[in-house]
């Protein structure tokens, strides 16, 4: 019984992914491009050689972390749209630390930078969590506002404090603070692959433990599933909300910090919120907020993004086709309830809607 349930859980994302690719193929056919050729290029461009693989893995690292962040808050019943802002704060925090303490021993310097970034991201979403828990302010609105505050604050800070006159970006961090070491560069044919990937994998494991083995994780799940019953059982619901938002922001912040140290090596003024913050939400949805599932969903998204670049290199197909595939996948995940109903019909097993248990939220 449990078995068939998890099987069904897997069916929805798989069908969504297939549907997304089919829609992409239909569109390509309609406009006279060769879908098979393009999908082949997409595959080769993302996973076909060690360099592309390195790029894909590097690109999926922050996705994993922002998705995990979103999943944590959403398990507690909150919609944390603040991923982009928290990611930016994390990035900023890590670079500032690395620029200020270049003489620390390597390990301390890196850990310090990562912690500083994660903490800034955490504080950023903690603000929203606090407002939500004690004043009932909608976290959707506050996190969106905090995104913009982060963006403009960082632009201001970079211009006025970090960058030299006339420049739009901070100086680069010292080499030893970078997560992108020579060893990895050699290994992956000079890709931007860095140690951050392993940190992300470890974090997934930690978060899995957090939800399934720890007291705090249990409280977060309980509050998310039924706030009244949790309150009645004596759970400090307000504190739990704040904790969940804090953890959520720590994760997105860590994502930003890793990208800062591993990928960018500096921080620049930017006009837009980083898309990785929003894509993390999509990844989390595709993975149904399951930490392990997030790894695979992030891999898929990242491969599509990286492989998409080579589509337009090897043919005249516009690389936007990849965005359409991604968007379609998200769309189909979004309407998963339709699938679920259809599946239930076929499998003659509408398990979750029994007369007694029909309160599934």
């Amino acid at each position: 019984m449990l078995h068939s349930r998890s099987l069904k859980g897997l069916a929805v994302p798989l069908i969504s992914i297939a549907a997304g690719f089919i829609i992409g193929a239909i569109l390509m056919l309609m406009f006279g491009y060769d879908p098979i050729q393009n999908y082949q290029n997409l595959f080769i461009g993302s996973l076909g050689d060690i360099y592309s693989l390195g790029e894909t893995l590097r690109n999926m690292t922050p996705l994993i972390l922002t998705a995990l962040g979103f999943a944590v808050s959403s398990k507690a019943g909150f919609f944390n749209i603040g991923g982009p802002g928290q990611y930016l704060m994390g990035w900023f925090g890590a670079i500032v630390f690395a620029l200020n303490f270049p003489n620390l021993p390597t390990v301390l310097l890196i850990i310090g930078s990562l912690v500083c970034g994660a903490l800034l991201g955490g504080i950023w979403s903690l603000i929203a969590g606090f407002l939500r828990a004690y004043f009932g302010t909608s976290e959707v609105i506050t996190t969106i506002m905090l995104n913009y505050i982060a963006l403009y604050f960082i632009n201001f800070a970079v211009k006025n404090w970090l960058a030299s006159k006339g420049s739009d970006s901070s100086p680069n961090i010292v080499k030893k603070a970078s997560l992108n070491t020579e060893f990895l560069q050699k290994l992956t044919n000079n890709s931007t692959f860095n140690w951050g990937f392993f940190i992300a994998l470890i974090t997934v494991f930690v978060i899995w433990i957090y939800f399934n083995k720890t007291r705090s994780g249990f409280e977060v799940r309980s509050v998310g599933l039924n706030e009244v019953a949790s309150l009645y059982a004596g759970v400090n619901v307000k504190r739990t909300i704040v904790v969940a938002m804090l953890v959520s922001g720590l994760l997105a912040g860590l994502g930003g910090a890793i990208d800062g140290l591993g990928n960018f090596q500096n921080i620049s003024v930017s006009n837009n919120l980083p898309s990785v913050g929003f894509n993390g939400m999509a990844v989390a949805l595709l993975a149904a907020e399951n930490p392990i599932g997030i790894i695979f969903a992030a891999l898929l998204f990242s491969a599509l993004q990286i492989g998409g670049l080579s589509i337009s290199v090897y043919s005249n197909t516009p690389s936007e086709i990849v965005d359409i595939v991604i968007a379609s996948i998200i769309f189909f995940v979004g309407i998963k309830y339709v699938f679920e109903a259809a599946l239930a019909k076929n499998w003659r097993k509408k398990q979750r809607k029994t007369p007694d248990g029909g309160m599934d939220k």
Partner: protein
Amino acid sequence: MENDIVQMKNITKIFGSYKANDNISLKLKKGEILALLGENGAGKSTLMGMLSGLLKPTSGEIIINGKPAKMENPREAKALGIGMVHQHFMLIPAFSVLENIILGDEPLKAGRIDYKKAAKDIEFLAGKYHLEIDLNAKVSDITVGMQQRVEIMKALYRKANVFIFDEPTAALTPQEISQLMKITHALSEEGKSIIFITHKLKEIKEVADRCVVIRMGKVIDSVRVAETKEAALAEMMVGHKVNFAIDKKEVNQEKDIFKIEKLSVEAHGQLKIKNLDLTVHSGEIVGVAGVDGNGQSELIEAVTGLRKCKTGTIMLNGKKIQHQSARKIAEAGISCIPEDRQNVGLILPLTISENLVLKSYYKKPISNKGFLNYKKINEDGRRMIKQFDIRSQSEKELVGDLSGGNQQKVVVAREISAQPDLLIAANPTRGVDIGAIEYIHEKIMEQRNAGHGVLLVSFELEEILKLSDRVVVMHEGQIVGEIDPRDTSSEELGMLMAGKQQAEEMGEIS
């Protein structure tokens, strides 16, 4: 067989590997009132779920009005004239009562919902069947009893031909129950057929023509109610003789365990508890009787720390406990079986064993340095499942998948095994079968015999009279009378409760 409205033929329903219904056949005639009797988890709700289109049979056939019916969803069942009042309500808390009743069947006028007509139709039905409901109240604000009436009204409003009532009386007061009996008879006289699920044999005797007994997913027997004794029904259902006697020991009742003084509590801007005094002694069960909505829920919420006290004191073992967190109060020694198991007592998407530790997960030995010991949680879960006879497939089954009575047993198991100084039990046997009632009563009595206090709030007057050492009557947020259960019958108690209500209403008119 022309007057068979419903025929269920060889129905089997399998969940995963579990056979909830095993080759069940059932017939229902026009105008007939059929009772379904069976232990918790016997498969009654499952069977009715298939008749109302909510579940699909694994195999078997449903014939309605002589035609095979392929019911894909509740809407199609409704179109065939089947209306079900579910054991667990299917209401939308954020909607008003009126909106909930018409949802899915909204009368339209120029493309817009004609609320006026809907309200008029419903008020007509309410008058005809004497169902008192407040159409404008939000469902999240109304009592469980009122929610039950709203569910019944939903079926009436849809003009069903076949009514399925799945344990409709579990949350109703005696007056409301007798009203429902009248409605049921009236419907049958109008030529409608009714399937009535209840664990109360008295109700079956009173209302049903025929009774089908189900045990472990199989039909055991179908009997004419007029020709069968209650005891025989009980025996058929559990498979052995049932013992209704209870062991009430003489215990020392001198110590005040629990004392409320001059308590006032507000809810929704109204004063719901007014200057209330109440004491529970050691080794004493105090029953609280009263018509639903007279402040019982607010009293419980205030004591358990879910609602602020406006004035007054609440003391446990001589220590003040008001204005403390729910957890502090629980740790001080108060346990509570809440009246709403699905929304308050349990977290349905969690497992049985997780729900069993919902109040103790944060303490040693279950929690150690912030980590939960799931091995221990599941071991304890298995032990309690056995001890309290919770019918389930494993301790890791989701509580939401259990039958109603078994969900109730999970709450009872958790609260009683905490060995509290004061146990608050709000309708503790709501929806559980006779065998389980016997067990829960025994457990409550054990609490008392061990010198702890019990505050029993129940609509079941017989339960109150049987268990309590002292019964207080609650009305409009105050204790308005006290009786000795040894020389009061449930009729007298009912009259007392209703009398208070009537006197009040008379006073308002003059």
